[in-house]
């Protein structure tokens, strides 16, 4: 049934929709595929470019006051201590900045149509704010509330014990902020910090694989076949990312 000598026919219609119905994937086009497993050179889907837009430590999304907040907060969520670098040293603030500047920050894959209601706890995220909006509003409102309390001008300027108290209150949903929901914001901040500590270094965090080294995760290894049966033995290789190992790369580059 499967052999047939007729020539392969693939017609590829590159149609860019001008604001009509949004296609499933905005960049691709419908294909009619017959008698082939289509493959095109150079079409491998590498990690999203948007998240890599800014290089080094320049912030693409966060304004100075927002950056100060995020840096201070991630440094408390996973602190630098005797075990080594924390989330700040590992670049979690840079990671969060790039995420907020990209598709994630815009909530592009999320269903964001109204009407809006608070909902039950079991119904999940129900705010109208995209992650970028939520960070902006929450940081502004938390800093204002800290200033109102009178111990410092902003969260970043508080003593660490006070910062911890604030984070704990946010986690418990105690502060009634004017627009942002404290608990929703804290949940997102915590998740993004863990992502910035443990995701592949191509996204700007987990610098020098500090997060992976701390716990002993070897990263993007392709083959563990030889080690499946070595019960209880330490895995001998250092961690590897999608961009290789830190030792393989030029000074100062990410990934």
């Amino acid at each position: 049934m499967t052999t047939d000598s007729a020539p392969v026919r693939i017609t590829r219609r590159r149609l860019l929709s001008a604001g009509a119905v949004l296609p499933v994937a905005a960049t691709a086009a419908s294909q009619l595929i017959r008698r082939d497993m289509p493959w095109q050179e150079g079409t491998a889907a590498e990690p999203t470019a948007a998240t890599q837009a800014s290089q080094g430590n320049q912030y693409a999304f966060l304004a100075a006051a927002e950056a100060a907040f995020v840096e201070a907060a991630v440094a408390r969520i996973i602190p630098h201590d005797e075990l080594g670098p924390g989330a700040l040293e590992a670049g979690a603030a840079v990671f969060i900045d790039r995420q907020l500047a990209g598709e994630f920050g815009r909530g592009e894959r999320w269903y964001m149509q109204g009407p809006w209601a608070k909902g039950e706890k079991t119904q999940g995220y129900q705010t109208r704010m995209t992650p970028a909006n939520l960070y902006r509003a929450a940081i502004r409102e938390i800093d204002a509330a800290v200033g109102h309390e009178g111990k410092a001008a902003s969260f970043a300027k508080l003593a660490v014990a006070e910062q911890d108290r604030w984070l704990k209150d946010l986690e418990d949903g105690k502060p009634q902020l004017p627009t942002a929901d404290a608990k929703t914001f804290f949940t997102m901040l915590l998740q993004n910090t863990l992502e910035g500590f443990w995701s592949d270094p191509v996204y700007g965090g987990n610098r020098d694989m500090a997060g992976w080294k701390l716990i002993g995760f070897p990263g993007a290894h392709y083959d563990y076949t030889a080690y499946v049966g070595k019960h209880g033995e330490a895995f001998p290789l250092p961690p590897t990312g999608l961009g290789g190992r830190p030792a393989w790369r030029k000074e100062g580059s990410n990934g």
Partner: protein
Amino acid sequence: MAERLPPVDALLVGFGWTGAILGQELTDAGLNVLALERGAWRDTPTDFAPTFAQDELRYYFRHELFERLSHETLTVRNNIGQTALPMRQLGSFLPGSNVGGAGVHWNGQTWRFLPSDFVAHSHNLQRYGKLQQDMTIQDWGVSYDELEPHYDRFEYICGISGQAGNLRGAIQAGGNPFEGPRARPYPNPPMAMSYPPTLFAEAARSLGYKPFPQPSANMSQAYTNPLGVQLGPCTYCGFCEKFGCGNYSKATAQTTILPVLMRKPNFTLRTESEVLKINLDSTGKRAVSVTYVDAAGREYEQPADLIVLTAYILHNVRLLLLSGIGKPYDPVAGTGVVGRNYAYQITSSVNVFYDDKLLNPFIGAGAHGMLIDEFNGDNFDHSGLGFIGGGFIGIVQTGGRPIEMHATPEGTPKWGSAFKKAIARNYLRSTSVVTHGAVMSHRGNYLDLDPTYRDVYGRPLLRMTFDFTDNEHKMSDYLTDKATDLAKAMKPREIKVNKRQGSWDVVPYQTTHNTGGAVMGTDPSTSVVNRYLQSWDVSNLFVLGSGAFPQNPGYNPTGTVAALAYWAADAIRTRYLKAPGPLA
């Protein structure tokens, strides 16, 4: 106006696991088959190559392979007293999109249901005398024996790695002694076991249980399937569940069927073509075409003699409701069928922490584990327990991806220095015993159309009304207690018990094992399709997938989804095509 296209013999709506199976079977029967897939073409070397597939952030947390909710989602609530709100972010389950469907990012845990699962209603009634009020379970209308050759077919297409437990009635050492009789062994031996499942198996044996290796669609060795397609040995990379395999080692449509099907002269695939509606003739008893929209937003009408819904349960049910096929279910009156008997899976876990054992949790695969089945289905006496059903218990070491999997002992804060220390201490030395339980169907759990929320085309979203009932909680607690005993028998430093408490919550990932809504049966007043998955109302329409399950047994669904697909395809080939019309 929709442009009308030339007719085809058979049309598949969606091109994931069931679409690929039907495509292969119906083209073999000589039909001219067209598949319409809403997503894009997707294949191993371009979309999940080993050079970038192991990316936890991109694939799991940013959902790159899953359904885009900005395009389509559903609304959720726990009961009819609440207002359903949209699932704005993915959580509890992860529907697939693009060619290969959710099969691209499944784990590959490939089960057969128990013979008694197919007669859940009559079997439990006979053994226990009565059923709980408002439990709406029923028999499937198909038996295990009828499905056996079709299970076998799928297992050989996939190259399942496993150990037979029951060969033609003879119980086999090392396999699952509770499984139904199988005609021949699995095509591949079990996978090599890493440390955590091995420790579980030792503990289970010490308690008198009979542990066996998880039947797995991850290859234990190189394999060539009956279609001549080759798969390579799994490398235990630990990026399997929720990820594509860069290694041709996980059975998916792409690695088992498409290399043959795509080259057939009588098969055509149109990608980024989303079906909006099934159109009926004036009698309402015959489907004449579907309406679909392409990537440019253009609308087409595609006529076909035979239409098969292979779009995953949630989209199949929604398309039936939007097309006005079958009577929608009304939970108050208890009448109607479409959307009735929606069910799910209930899971729990017990974390196990050692000091003296290095477990290397990152060595894993999607279906790489040791399990026991003593507490699944009706493998144990439920008298006096106050529930029916059960689940499997064991350790499936799918990997140790650190954003997702960083268990900490009881009482550890979620952040700060103590959190960091706890992770550093426990990451390499912890694992988790899981329970994977059945969900019985219940009068109040169902699917219908949402009155408020719309998709990008302005059509109503599907609305899911679902909660775990008393039966599920009792059953899950029972399984969790057994899992706790097993975890203790592993002799760890400490454990942490994570029961499934409270109402079903859309936020934490549980399983993509949604079932029901278009259930099969022998009575049109309680089923949407007959025992061949043919619509009672529209005989040239077949509805595949786990939507056909009248309730959800304690195993992962796809083995049975696929067996039912081969069973339906066989009925179409051997009976329907000779005399098109109702088969039952």
